[in-house]
């Protein structure tokens, strides 16, 4: 049986950078202040006028095929469930934070109250009832899609099918094979695959340096 590749796809041509996905996620999942399972970075501005690039880059668990967070976990708390979704079993998490260091995208969160690591669950509590993840359901720009990349009838596949290969991107891949796809055409400019924000929690409001 082929495993599903469920993930979020974000169309950056549509994204207005409103931070609604961050707040939708936090409201739905009761994420503590200072922690974000879904974060909106800003890339740019880079380039010289008039050829400049700036875009909002919503970032969450990329559902990597070879997820380093899973392989480094000493207890098996970081795991893939039966639907292939990368998750954390809080009962088994000993709080060593190896996975947080291993994640190339900085999208794992520390739950200080419970002493364990947390992350985007693709809103399993909703998708198991046939609903959309909170960030997808309420996306103000209709820029977020959820589904199985391998199912041509899924919302993600249908959205991706509208675009050329050159307009479909992944975050920098160090062999971990992120599943999440970003759509961005030359209407916006040049795609930068780096996500190395600076300045801790306020990075959302600050640019990623070229």
């Amino acid at each position, binding site marked *: 049986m082929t495993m599903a590749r469920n993930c979020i796809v974000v169309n950056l041509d549509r994204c207005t950078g409103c931070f609604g996905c961050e707040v939708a996620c936090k409201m739905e999942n009761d994420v503590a202040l200072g922690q974000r399972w879904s974060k909106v970075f800003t890339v740019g501005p880079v380039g010289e*006028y008039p050829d400049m690039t700036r875009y909002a880059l919503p970032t969450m668990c990329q559902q990597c095929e070879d997820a380093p967070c899973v392989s480094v976990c000493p207890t098996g708390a970081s795991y893939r469930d039966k639907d292939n979704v990368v998750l954390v079993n809080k009962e088994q998490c000993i709080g060593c934070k190896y996975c947080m260091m291993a994640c190339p995208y900085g999208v794992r969160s520390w739950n200080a109250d419970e002493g364990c690591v947390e992350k985007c669950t693709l809103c399993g509590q909703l998708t198991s009832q046939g609903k959309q993840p909170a960030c997808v359901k309420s996306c103000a720009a209709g820029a977020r899609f959820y589904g199985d990349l391998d199912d041509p009838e899924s919302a993600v596949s249908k959205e991706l099918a509208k675009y050329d290969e050159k307009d479909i991107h992944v975050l920098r891949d160090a062999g971990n094979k992120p599943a999440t796809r970003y759509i961005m055409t030359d209407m916006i400019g040049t795609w930068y695959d780096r996500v190395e924000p600076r300045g801790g929690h306020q990075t959302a409001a600050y640019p990623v340096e070229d």
Partner: protein
Amino acid sequence: MSHSSMTRRGFLKSTAAMGAVAALGISAAGSLVEADPAHAATAGEEKVYKTSCRACIANCAVLAHVRDGRVIKIEGNPESPMSQGGVCAKGLAGIQALYHPNRNKYPMRRVGERGGNQWERISWEDAITEVATKINEMSDKYGSESISVSTGGGGNPHFSNIKRFGEAINTPNVWEPGCAQCYLPRMGAALLAYGRGKPNNLSFSDSNGWDYYYTDSPVTSLVLWGTDPSNSSVATGGRALAELRARPQGLKTVVIDPRYTLDAAKADVWLPIRPGTDVALLLTWTKWILDNEKYDEEFCRSWTNMPYLINPETRLTLKATEAGLEGTDADYVIWDPAANAPVVVQYPMNEGVAAPLFGTYEVNGMQCPTGGELLKQSVEEWTLEKGAEVCWLDADQIERALEIYTDPEGQSGIMQGVAIDQYAQSQQSALGALNLEFLMGNVEKPGTMLQSFAPAPCKDQLGNTPRLLSKDKVMKRAGYLEHKGLICWDMAFIPGIFDMMRDGDPYQIHMWIERSGNKHVVLGNSSCLDEITPNVDYIVHAFMYPTAFSVLCADLILPTTEWLETNLPIPQLNTIVMRQAVTHLFETVEEGIIWTNIVQKCAELGNEHAAKAFDADACMTTPFYKNEYEKQLQHLNKLDMTWEEACEQGVIKWAEEDEYRTYGVYLKPDPATGLPKGFGTPSKKLEVYCESNIILGRTGAPWAQCAEEKPLVLPPASEDYEPLAYYMEPAESPLTDTEYPLVLTEGRLPMYHHGTLRNIPYLREIYPVPEMWIHPEDAEKYGITDGEWVNIESRRGKTHGKARVTTGIAKGVVYQERFWAPELLDSDDPAQAYKVMNVNVLTKNDAPYNPEYGTYTLRGFQVKVSPSDDEILKSVWIEPEQFNAWMPAPSDPTEDVYDYGA
């Protein structure tokens, strides 16, 4: 907030006792409410209500999930044709606003000195009686004009209510900081030059541009002039643009904004204009369109007043009687080149007469230019090069933008944002942009911005009652004769109000009733309040939370409702989106119900004028409602269903799409004459030469009225209002200012609206303090490092921001949005709550003002910057955990304070 977390944190019930004295601010929660640990977790049935957000003016349709009387989840309602299921961060955080521990929960009366921040709870009966008694006493002693009433755009307001309230208590001195500085200039200019009775103008973020919510609109390009829908109308306008851009044919855009916004980043051309020079660029565009003959000549001849001859003596259109022709003084005159003679216009246009748009002709001994000729002369000097020089732009990029806008194969439109409303050239910017659209024939065609689509059967705004005020009373309104554009909204001139409050000039204002988020954050040069409010005897503040204004100025605080506690129908395209109260907390009251109860109490205590507010004959329009039931009936208007039926449907489709999208309404026959209806101007033509602006200044037409007279003909303003846009260099200019070298502009953020929401934990952690954008070259020049605090100073004051060194801002310009720090309200120096990082202590509320509206200067003035290590900055909350004090304290619903009424 999930249900589980709600039970984990427990919920709070109100236990504040009458008479207990408390401070308002970060510690308010503990002193006013306490948790009830005995309350067990319950899991009742979850009900989903269809309602409408009011975290900003976009009114997006949302679904509110309610369990056991508590709102537990907000998500988008896909039935709205505008927001289509989207909600932005502001709306999603609505639960944190609703259950904010610092809600104003009960009427509170000040104890001790003003500014001492000590308050005691009083009953609504006592509060209303106190306000009504003061109103009646002040009216008897000083005249009712000595009471000033104000509102503002942030925080679930209702504009027409406050106007009705002012008129009901017989004061002409009602005002708000938007108005002349936000939306009125764009609306007023369109009413004068285009004349559609239903508000229709170039402001996309005020829910115009209806054709652009349909992806089959033939629009091919848009000019976003000083507007950023991604920030200012996220899930409606921002969404619409995202949908248009995502079409296979896409959407070309030109963005004119000093900031490289995310809309600018998607644009084909970004023009990082110098703030305050929009009119220079408009004149440059106009000249290029005329010189390159890009305008729609036939449309201009038939449907604008460009061919109409102008009388050089009156500056108005030449009339038949003045030309020595057969006809009346209502007949317009054009030049007939074949006959080489003037002829009277036969509406809509004389057959076979190719009336020239340009040129000057001798009529009856006078040299009479056409309206078009005067337009041409007004832009004569504005070459691309001159425009580029004045606006700090690249001439080639201006021309690229013009080629997109005027592409003969495409259909374009201009969206004009609040930026142009915020300095002395507000009316000129609005008229100049309308003229571009008129020249291009971008009017009521598929794909144009200006439309006259079918009106909804319900009303979100009820309209004012200006005929409640006598001539004597209305003539006492601040700025009434000089800034007659304000009469469009029946509002007063703010600097004039402040002169009265501070100096008693020309008479003293003794009482101020205010409803809004924080006047100290949104008023120009807001620290002037420090010397004004001590001279006002009695001040009432109605809002959802304590603000700097409450703590520093108020004597009485009235708690108002959040949008989740409020009812209102909202027209959205061919639907009505219902806002319905899904809960009610503490003793909060919707502002309209507060106002009507005050008026009723005034009447009960013997105020004869107040009684008239409920009399349709005295109002000469719909009178003030007395309760929620009557209010709902007035808003439902012609919608033939009960409030409950309407709420049950939630989103009501009242017309099919094609019935709603009515194009070319001006061409439809007028049943009375059989001729085309034309536009709503006196000439039924688009006034490129806006003589209605001159007439407004001279007489107050078409807006002045009073109890005795309609129209009320007023004496003229000190100078004529100009019929055509003209450029005026900002009073503080980087071209001459050596002490304050940088130009400041403001601009919207997606997670805040006006002065509101700085107390919402999930929003504040995203953007805890305002960024000050500065170009790398300027940063180097002034020693500014990215991410560090800076001092920003103007001739009026000093504040702070956090530097963001970026090429996303024009050189020589800095950008920062309004901000305040609610965490400093109960500090030793509560004024710092508004001073520490608020650009409005820098802005300018002195002359020069816009002649028409009295607009003062919020953008396009001069500042200087330097690195800062001011001690006060350590008190500003930046770390996310600090906002824990403001996390929601869910509370059980309470009964409404006032009877429903039916």
